[in-house]
C-alpha cells in the first residue's frame, strides 16, 4: 500500500514536470519587453542632425499634446520599409514626430532622408546609443508615444505597421 502511494506520487510528480517542460517548448525564448509602459522620460541632451545645434529634451518636448519618437538609422533595412508609414503618420497634426538617428553617419542619414522624404518635425542624433538606452530601447526601428507630461505611454518594437499607425492615431486623437 505504502509503495503504491509513493509510486503514484512519483508518477504524478514526473507527469507534472513533463507537462510544464512540454508547454515550455512552445514558448518563445526571445525576450520581448513590455510595450505598455508608464515611464517618465529621462532628461537628455542631443544635437540637431542638420543645424548641429545642441538641444535638450526640455526644448524638444514642448508645445504639443503628444510626441512620437522614432528611432531609426540609414543602415537599418526595416527602417526603409517603415519610412512610408512615417510619411503617412506625419499627416497627423496632433503629434510632433521626432526622429532619433541611432549610431549613424550624418552624411548617410541625410542621404536617406533626401531619398525617402522627411516625415520628421526634427531629427536629433544619438551617436553612441546612450539616449536610446535611457529610453529603454533595444534596437532600431523602435517608436515611442510620449504625452505632454513627458511620460512614455506606449512603445512599438520593430517597424510600424498599419495596425500600429491606427493605434497611434487612436491614442493621439
Amino acid at each position, binding site marked *: 500500500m505504502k509503495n503504491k502511494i509513493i509510486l503514484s506520487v512519483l508518477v504524478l510528480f514526473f507527469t507534472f514536470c513533463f507537462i510544464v517542460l512540454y508547454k515550455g517548448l512552445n514558448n518563445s*525564448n526571445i525576450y520581448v*519587453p513590455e510595450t505598455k509602459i508608464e515611464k517618465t522620460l529621462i532628461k537628455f541632451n542631443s544635437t540637431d542632425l542638420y543645424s548641429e545645434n545642441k538641444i535638450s529634451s526640455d526644448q524638444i518636448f514642448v508645445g504639443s499634446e503628444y510626441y512620437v519618437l522614432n528611432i531609426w538609422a540609414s543602415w537599418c533595412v526595416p527602417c526603409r520599409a517603415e519610412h512610408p508609414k512615417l510619411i503617412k503618420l506625419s499627416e497627423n497634426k496632433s503629434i510632433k514626430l521626432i526622429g532619433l538617428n541611432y*549610431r549613424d553617419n550624418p552624411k548617410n542619414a541625410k542621404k536617406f532622408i533626401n531619398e525617402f522624404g522627411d516625415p520628421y518635425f526634427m531629427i536629433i542624433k544619438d551617436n*553612441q546609443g*546612450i539616449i536610446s538606452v535611457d529610453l*529603454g530601447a*533595444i*534596437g532600431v526601428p523602435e517608436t515611442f508615444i510620449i504625452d505632454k507630461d513627458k511620460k512614455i505611454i506606449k512603445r512599438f518594437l520593430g517597424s510600424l505597421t498599419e495596425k500600429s499607425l491606427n493605434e497611434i492615431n487612436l491614442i493621439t486623437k
Partner: protein
Amino acid sequence: MKLSSFLLIILITFNFTNLNSEENNDKIKNKISKNIRCLICQGQSVYDSQSDFAVSIKLIIDKKLNEGLNENEIYDFLKKQYGEWISYDPEFNKKTFILWILPILLFVIGGAIILRKFIVQKL
C-alpha cells in the same frame, strides 16, 4: 635637487593612483557587463556581444561609473530600463522564489530520506 626628487616621487605616486583607479573601473565595468544579458543576441552577455545594443550598454556602464554610481546602482538602473530579465542574477521575489527555494527543498527532503534510511539500517 631634493625638492625635484620629492616632486618626482609625488608625480609618480599620483600617476599610479590614477592608473589603479582606471584599472579598478575597468574591472567593475567588465564584471557588470558579464552579468548583463545582451537583449539582441540573447545567448551572450553584453561583455561577449558586439551588437550595437551591447556597445551602447558598455558605454552607459562607463558613463554611470564616471558619474560615481556603484555596481548595484548600475544594475538597478538597467533593470528599471529593461526589466529584471536583463540581469543574469535573478532577485528573490514572488516570481523567482520557486527557482531559489526548490533546490534547497529537494536537498533537505533528499537528505532527510537518506538520513532516515541510514538510521533505519543502523537500528
